[in-house]
């Protein structure tokens, strides 16, 4: 008998007892998902409810486990680049960057300056569209069906058009290479990007008018799903979740990878660690991304976009191990690679931010209503391609 055939019964649903030992009623066990419109994909929550209050919650993963790491160990370094697109399918550009950064560290490649600028531009555009869509999704989880998503996807399409023009694909860009980027951008593309960036703050104003002081949003999000600072640090939460809890930690400032030391931008930090802070952090981060984009589009130099020493076909880095990380829109995205000198990695491991951010879901949901658990899950910003890999 194999383990999968009988799912483990971890929950004991017992009647709740009053002080005199009398039974008050039964707890209700609900299995939310994997087919559920608010679980952002094929994610399942086993929830035990007392009335409407969550008393126990167990996240169940693995419905989208598609063997990313095992496949990565069996194919060449370059052939794994398109697979990284499909990790966090909202942010293929930052995934590409994290993987390229790791292998460049391993092989000692130097990225030309223009390529570094293009990478930063792509990463910040990715951050803009990811945060915009996330806010659309999580307002939808609160019950605003359709309309916020329409606004978010309208803006997303503008950025996807830019990606498509330069890489040929809307979502799965597969754009970066070890030692640079695949193709150069032209002046026309930069002019178009400047226009999109200039219009974006207008959109953020419009979106903010609807949401930031909206009475329903305030009532549903303030002091709901509070994540304390010490728990956030102990559970190695990263990204907007950690910063909303009040920790000033952004890899763009800490590691200064790429050319982020040249840009003038700030890291927004929250105070309460509730859902509203997580929402505001993302809005403020988008404003900072616009600042970075404006500086990068102004300063981008002319030059090559690939390291001439880079060899893509038959690429065999020297033996060794390496860990590379970037600040993806969801948190710290890291790749750990052990090379034994052969054309494919000996061990390949992904540190997915949304999977690790999901581990404290129960701590945030306990004591709240089941409807709040849905919004809390929405504010964590998960993508199942990355959680299950």
């Amino acid at each position: 008998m194999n383990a999968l055939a009988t799912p483990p019964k971890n929950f004991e649903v017992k009647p709740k007892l009053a002080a005199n030992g009398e039974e008050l009623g039964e707890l209700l066990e609900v299995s939310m998902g994997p087919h559920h419109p608010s679980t952002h994909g094929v994610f399942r929550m086993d929830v035990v409810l007392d009335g409407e209050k969550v008393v126990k919650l167990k996240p169940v993963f693995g419905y989208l486990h598609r063997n990313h790491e095992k496949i990565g160990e069996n194919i060449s370094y370059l052939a794994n680049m398109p697979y990284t697109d499909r990790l966090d399918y909202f942010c293929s550009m930052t995934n590409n960057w994290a993987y390229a950064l790791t292998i460049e560290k391993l092989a000692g490649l130097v990225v030309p300056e223009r390529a570094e600028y293009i990478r930063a531009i792509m990463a910040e555009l990715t951050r803009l569209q990811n945060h915009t869509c996330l806010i659309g999704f999580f307002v939808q989880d609160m019950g605003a069906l359709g309309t916020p998503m329409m606004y978010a996807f309208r803006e997303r399409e503008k950025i996807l058009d830019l990606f498509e023009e330069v890489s040929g694909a809307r979502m799965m860009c597969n754009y970066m290479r070890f030692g640079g980027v695949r193709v150069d951008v032209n002046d026309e593309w930069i002019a178009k990007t400047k226009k999109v960036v200039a219009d974006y703050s207008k959109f953020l104003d419009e979106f903010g008018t609807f949401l930031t002081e909206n009475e329903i949003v305030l009532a549903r999000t303030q002091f709901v799903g509070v994540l304390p600072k010490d728990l956030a640090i102990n559970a190695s939460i990263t990204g907007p979740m950690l910063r909303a809890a009040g920790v000033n930690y952004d890899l763009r400032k800490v590691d200064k990878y790429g050319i982020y030391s040249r840009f003038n931008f700030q890291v927004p930090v929250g105070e309460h660690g509730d859902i509203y802070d997580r929402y505001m952090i993302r809005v403020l981060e988008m404003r900072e991304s616009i600042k970075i984009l404006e500086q990068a589009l102004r300063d981008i130099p002319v030059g090559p976009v690939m390291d001439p020493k880079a060899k893509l076909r038959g690429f065999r880095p020297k033996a060794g191990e390496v860990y590379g990380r970037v600040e993806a829109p969801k948190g710290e995205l890291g790749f750990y690679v052990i090379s034994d000198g052969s054309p494919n990695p000996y061990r390949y491991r992904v540190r997915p931010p949304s999977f690790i951010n999901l581990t404290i879901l129960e701590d945030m949901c306990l004591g709240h209503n089941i409807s709040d658990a849905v919004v809390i899950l929405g504010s964590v910003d998960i993508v199942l391609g990355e959680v299950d890999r």
Partner: protein
Amino acid sequence: MIDEGLKSELQKQGVYVTTLEDLYNWGRANSVWPLTFGLACCAIEMMAASMARFDLARFGAEVFRPSPRQADLMIVAGTVTKKMAPLVVRIYNQMPEPKYVIAMGACAISGGPFKQGYNVLKGVDRYLPVDVAIPGCPPRPEALIHAIMTLQEKILAQKLTGPDRPRHLNADVASEFPVPAYGPHDLEPPKNDAVWHPTVIKR
């Protein structure tokens, strides 16, 4: 059948003549309600198709229903893993007839880029009857719109009576399919022979 010349002659005089079959299929084809069923990356393109820019509402297919009881069309948007496959079949069984399946993207068709993985089902057509398949990784929203138009053509051509009538009008054909279970090595059964008819390449 109505004589086409007579039909157009009558239309000029304000009389519209049609058959029950045409009317019935016309109504069904223009109000296909898909199931809100996202599995992976393709689900994002499916959402993009229903948003303002691509506007799936023009083809009557924008009412995404979260409950399988209210849905006509299952868009299998993404990789079906072996853990998810029994649930996909179970959700399909819960949908009322007439029901259709679109396999969206390379993963749903054949396992796609993840085909060599140990946990990936090599095509949803092993368990479900797929009506339209959309290649691409992920397919563009226009491709999904094209698939829905192809499905509409298929619905419009269906006969209400006769030996080649569709499954939902034939009481002898089962509308539910056996749900696979986890075996010691693979899903059991690994395929539904009544549904899966792979092309045999002769060399």
